[in-house]
Each structure stands twice: as structure tokens, then as C-alpha cells.
């Protein structure tokens, strides 16, 4: 192989460069990639457990939306405490998670998603 040394060196440099994002993240501590969300003002649990909510809250909200608007089913039976809740983003979710800016936006901005819930739904139902 002509110029084998140069080619292999080039390949190694190329591999290091394209895997740079992986090295970079490994070198930095994971704490830098986490965000702190505001803890709910009260209430001990959410509609489902924390990990589920973190991953799937959008599915729960979409289900609520369809059930309330299209089927008229407005009550959610929470299996964690056996209580019944009104399926409402502004009036149930924001009742405990008091600040949209410090809870919803914080994570959505970090993830780079822009849900349009708040075009219509009231973000500060208590007029804060």
C-alpha cells in the first residue's frame, strides 16, 4: 500500500473528529446536562408516577383533550390516591405546578420543543 502511514493517520483523525460529540459528553460531568424544575407547591404525587409523567405527559394530555372535547368525559380517576380529578391543563395541572415558566417552559426550552397549548389555554389561571 502506497502512503499507508498517511492514510491510516488520516483515518484515525477522521474517526476522532466524527465521534467528537461522544467524547465531549463523556468528558463533561452529567450534572451539566440536567435542569432543575420547580417543585410543585403541594400535592405528593402526580396523575401517574414521576418517571412515567416525565416521559409520557404529552400522551396523557392528548388523551384528556380527546376525552373531554369529543366524548364529554371530564373526570380522571387517579390510581395513585383513588381520588377523582377534573381533566384540565390550566385548572388541574397548573394547580400544583404553579408556574408555567419555571416548570413547563424550563424543560421544553431545554429540549427545544414548542408546544402550542398556551395559544389558547390560560397559563396563569390564578392571575399571578
Amino acid at each position: 500500500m502506497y502512503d499507508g502511514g498517511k492514510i491510516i493517520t488520516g483515518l484515525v483523525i477522521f474517526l476522532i473528529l466524527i465521534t467528537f460529540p461522544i467524547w465531549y459528553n463523556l468528558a463533561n460531568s452529567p450534572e451539566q446536562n440536567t435542569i432543575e424544575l420547580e417543585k410543585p407547591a403541594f400535592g405528593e404525587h402526580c396523575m401517574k408516577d414521576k418517571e412515567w409523567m416525565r416521559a409520557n405527559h404529552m400522551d396523557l394530555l392528548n388523551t384528556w383533550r380527546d376525552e373531554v372535547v369529543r366524548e364529554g368525559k371530564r373526570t380522571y380517576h387517579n390510581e395513585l390516591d383513588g381520588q377523582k380529578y377534573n381533566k384540565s391543563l390550566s385548572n388541574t395541572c397548573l394547580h400544583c405546578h404553579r408556574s408555567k415558566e419555571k416548570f413547563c417552559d424550563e424543560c421544553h426550552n431545554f429540549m427545544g420543543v414548542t408546544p402550542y397549548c398556551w395559544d389558547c389555554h390560560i397559563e396563569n389561571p390564578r392571575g399571578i
Partner: protein
Amino acid sequence: MGGSRRDFLKTAGASLALLGGLSAESLAAPLSEGELFRPGEPLKEGNVRWAMVVDLKKCAGKDLSKLFEACHKIHNVPDMEREKDKIKWIWSEPFGHAFPNQEHEYVARPYQEKTVPVMCNHCERPPCVRVCPTQATFKREDGIVMMDMHRCIGCRYCIVACPYGSRSFNWRNPRPYIKEINPEFPTRTKGVVEKCNFCAERIARGKEPACVEACTDGALVFDDINDPNSKVRQLLETRYSIRRKPVLGTMPHVFYLV
């Protein structure tokens, strides 16, 4: 290949005649039972079917703005400046506008003023629902014609289809034009159509619609029309009532006592 040109033409002619016969038959097929509407015979006994009765005698010459304000305040209906942008859920019209073809030059003076409260008629056969391409507007089992704002794409076919002008389009963001936001009800966004929802959110909590509640003299009555003992049925059986544009066959469920 066997067969003459004559045979070919005979077969072709016979096939065409057969096809023509079939299609003529399907065209002449009568409407199914459910499509037909027989006057005086209520639809679907047993289920709840919401309806409203408006007593025009009690409305004549009165200031109805209190009812409209109650509705618009509860539902965050904006007060737009330009006529073109106006959003209306419930408003009033002169008799001749509400009931075209039924007015004449001797209509009593009070009825010539804006005295007939009008809103979405929550039709039994709503044309707006038929034309909506996304099923954003749909008819519930209890007869309420609902809007699902999440699905509305703002095509405005429903506005064209509605023969009562009950629907308004949000040409601009309505938020800045709402004086006092009711936190219990969402606002709308630019680019969606909206209309009266018969206070579906209040009925769910066992309350009467806001306009009915705000009306203290019983000019507006709301109840289940499928229940023979309901207030609505009692009124309809004892007084003469009319509906708006009955000839269109939309079967409105807002009735007017004259």
C-alpha cells in the same frame, strides 16, 4: 377470432343497456328511513337531547345585552373593534332577519327592532358538520354541535355552510381584545372558527347555559326535549312555536314561541 362485427355490436349494446339499467335503479332508490323527517314525530326517544325555547313575547322591547354579556364573558369571547373581525356567540336580530320570508309590512313595532336573540341552533342535521374536512365540528349524542379547536384548520367551510350565520372566524389573535379573562375557560387562537357550544362545559356540571341563567324572566328555557315532561316540551305543546329557516331541513333545536 370468431364472431362477426354484427355479434360484437350486439354484445356491446346489451352490456350497455344492462349497465344503464343498474345505475338508473340506484338513482331512483328511496332515502333510507333515518333520512326522512316526519313533522310532529320526535327523533330518538330515550336519550337526552338538549334544546332551547325562546319566548319572543318576553324578549320584545327588552334590553337583552345582559344575556349576551354573560355568555361572552364566561367563554372569553373577544370584543373586536372592526365589524369584519367581530366574534359572536349570541346576539339579536330584527324579526325579518331571523325569520326571512316570514316577515311582512305589518310586523308589530317591537319586533322590527333587534329583539330576537339568535345563536347556534344545534341542528339535528347540521350542515357545518357535513362539510368540515377534519371533523373538528361534530354532533354529540345529546345533540350539541361542538367545536374541537385542536382540529380546526380554519378553512371556513362551516361558515359558508351554516345558514344562520352562527359562526365567526378569528382573523386575528383574540387575546388582547378580551377585557377580563375567565381562567376556567380557554381562549381561542388566530385562525380558528368558533360559535355557541350550548354551554357544554356548564351542562357537564349540572348547570344551565349562561344565557338562560342570566335571563331572569324565563324568556329562555333549556331542557331535554326527549323527556315528555321537560319544561321545553311543556312549552312547545302549549304554545305555537317556529324555527329558523325550516325549509332547509336542518331541524334547529332552538325554538321560538310567537
